[in-house]
């Protein structure tokens, strides 16, 4: 150890989304011990809930699967799911981190056979579908879950249902007595890859998110996903009919001093991708995109141009003023077209609000003092004496490829920190 003493060369990565996974894998493959914490029962974060990536429209499961194999094959990487940071003390080279785990009630003997789910009777909201559907109280989070292990929802613990679930398991994998635990780990550096959540569209009162056919962009991903609530068909949530007149509203609560003052950078491309989803499914569909400006940076402009050339995709330079319920229950988008000065009111089958990314750490009392900007994003790195780094959307709005880049950068900086460089 170059700097001698009791320093630890282990690195803690907080958050098991695409940035956390990338940072952990890169660090471990460079020969360092890594501890990866994830608060939910599965890795993959928001990315595992996407249908496709822009601009190539390939499936995120593909890249995640490769990373899961790298995790499985690396003895230096220890991963804890359903684990959060309860406290941090110490300094660069010697942090003591208190980790708290919540019970999964299913141990490593689980073969994911599904007998427990068959025995469960109550339903809980399905987090992997953003609560658009429910699932049994004994569940596999989704079909590509990693770790591939069931979870028993705490709501059934202590009920006869839990006993039935335990009795159904042939492998003795159900542990109803598991309790919350805390333990300490010693690490030399910490990478915060705590990610984001979609801005709450309920705050956009003029946009009537409460209407069934007004959804947000992450829900649109689920509507288009083969394992989503509609098996991948883009259908109107209100009545299950095909959504053939679709409005995509950009900057819904972004670049807005009443909501998120910043641009989340991904929503324009995500919406262009949603337009592609709709056009791919329905030859006679019309998609209207309402925007202030389209921010398709670098090579992504080609994807923008491709959609612009589609005669059934119309771009309206306008920030809609309001969305109201029409006489037939369909959402009506109202506003002023800033190019033509027309004041419009157009009805749609489905309206998708492109809500921005809010840091997961915003609005919470964190167990440790981190350097955060005005919006709650964690500053990537403050100074050399500090062993804290951030990666992915925890440091600012990024798309997947930029998140992975930031994760690699954070991995390198963390290695330099523990090496005393």
């Amino acid at each position, binding site marked *: 150890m170059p700097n001698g003493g009791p320093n630890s060369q282990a690195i803690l990565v907080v958050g098991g989304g695409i940035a956390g996974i990338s940072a952990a894998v890169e660090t471990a493959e460079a020969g360092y011990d890594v501890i990866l914490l994830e608060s939910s029962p599965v890795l993959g974060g928001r990315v595992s809930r996407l249908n496709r990536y822009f601009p190539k429209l390939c499936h995120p499961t593909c890249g995640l699967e490769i990373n899961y194999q790298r995790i499985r094959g690396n003895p230096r990487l220890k991963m804890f799911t359903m684990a959060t940071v309860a406290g941090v003390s110490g300094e660069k080279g010697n942090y003591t981190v208190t980790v708290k785990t919540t019970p999964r009630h299913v141990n490593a003997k689980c073969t994911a056979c599904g007998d427990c789910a068959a025995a469960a009777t109550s339903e809980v909201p399905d987090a992997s579908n953003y609560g658009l559907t429910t699932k049994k109280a004994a569940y596999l989070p989704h079909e590509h879950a990693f770790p591939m292990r069931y979870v028993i929802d705490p709501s059934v613990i202590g009920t006869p249902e839990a006993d039935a679930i335990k009795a159904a398991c042939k492998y003795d994998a159900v542990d109803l007595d598991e309790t919350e635990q805390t333990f300490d780990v010693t690490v030399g550096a910490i990478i915060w890859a705590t990610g984001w959540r979609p801005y709450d569209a309920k705050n956009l009162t*003029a946009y009537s998110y409460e209407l069934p056919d007004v959804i947000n962009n992450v829900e649109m991903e689920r509507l288009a996903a083969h394992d989503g609530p509609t098996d991948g068909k883009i259908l109107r949530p209100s009545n299950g009919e095909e959504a053939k007149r679709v409005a995509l509203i950009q*900057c819904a609560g972004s*670049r*807005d*001093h*009443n*909501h998120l003052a910043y641009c989340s950078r991904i929503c324009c491309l995500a919406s262009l991708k949603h337009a592609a989803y709709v056009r791919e499914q329905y030859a006679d569909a019309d998609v209207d995109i309402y925007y*202030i400006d389209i921010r398709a940076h670098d090579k992504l402009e080609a994807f923008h141009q491709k959609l612009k050339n589609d005669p059934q995709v119309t771009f309206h*330079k*306008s*920030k*809609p*003023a*309001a969305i109201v319920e029409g006489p037939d229950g369909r959402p009506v988008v*109202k*506003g*002023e*077209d*800033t190019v033509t*000065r027309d*004041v419009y009111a157009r009805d749609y089958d489905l309206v998708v609000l492109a809500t921005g990314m809010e840091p997961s750490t915003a609005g919470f009392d964190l167990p440790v003092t981190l350097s955060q900007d005005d919006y709650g994003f964690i500053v990537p790195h403050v100074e050399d004496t500090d062993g804290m780094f951030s990666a992915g959307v925890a440091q600012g709005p990024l798309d997947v490829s930029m998140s992975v880049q930031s994760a690699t950068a954070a991995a390198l900086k963390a290695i330099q920190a523990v090496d005393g460089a």
Partner: protein
Amino acid sequence: MTAPLPESNGKKYDLGFARWVYENVDGGDKLSMCMQCGACSGSCPIGTEMDHGPRKLFMMIRAGMKEDVLKSNTMFNCTSCYNCVVRCPRKVPVTYILQDLGRVAQRLGYAEAKETDNARFAKAFFWSTRKFGRTDERLFSAKYYLSFGVGEAIKMAKANMPVARSLMKAKRMHLGMPHKIKGVKELNAILDKAEEIEKREQGV
């Protein structure tokens, strides 16, 4: 004190006007925040009645189109519902800017500003306030209608008879002598003083 509006010397695009608005119109300092998204004009309940609407009017101010801005009916159609102010993503106080621009147009004597419905209505309203210390719905409506000429006034009065009947039924309008407040004289003194202060502040 409000600086006098600089002369345009016949220029169609006078950037001095834009600067003057930023510095002298109520809320004008926030005008440069506008990003032309259209949320204001789209939010406006009577946006279709406006020739330009706030968004376009703000762009015209930036372009220095003094004459077109001050001849616009946009300011006078504003009902001060504040939808635009609440929704503006850049916190531009749209309503204040429109109201003050309307006053500027009035003060500078733009015919368009004097002839809008709202200007006539406000004038009649103020006449009633000064005369009775309150609004007499019947007389000030008549005063407003008559500003369009006798023939037009009769037509307008006839068209509004159902409204008048409803108002009378609800005891919001009455026949007979207008009701007056006790201190009409004192109220007029207050209003005179207010006008004097306004003029002083505008450097007139």
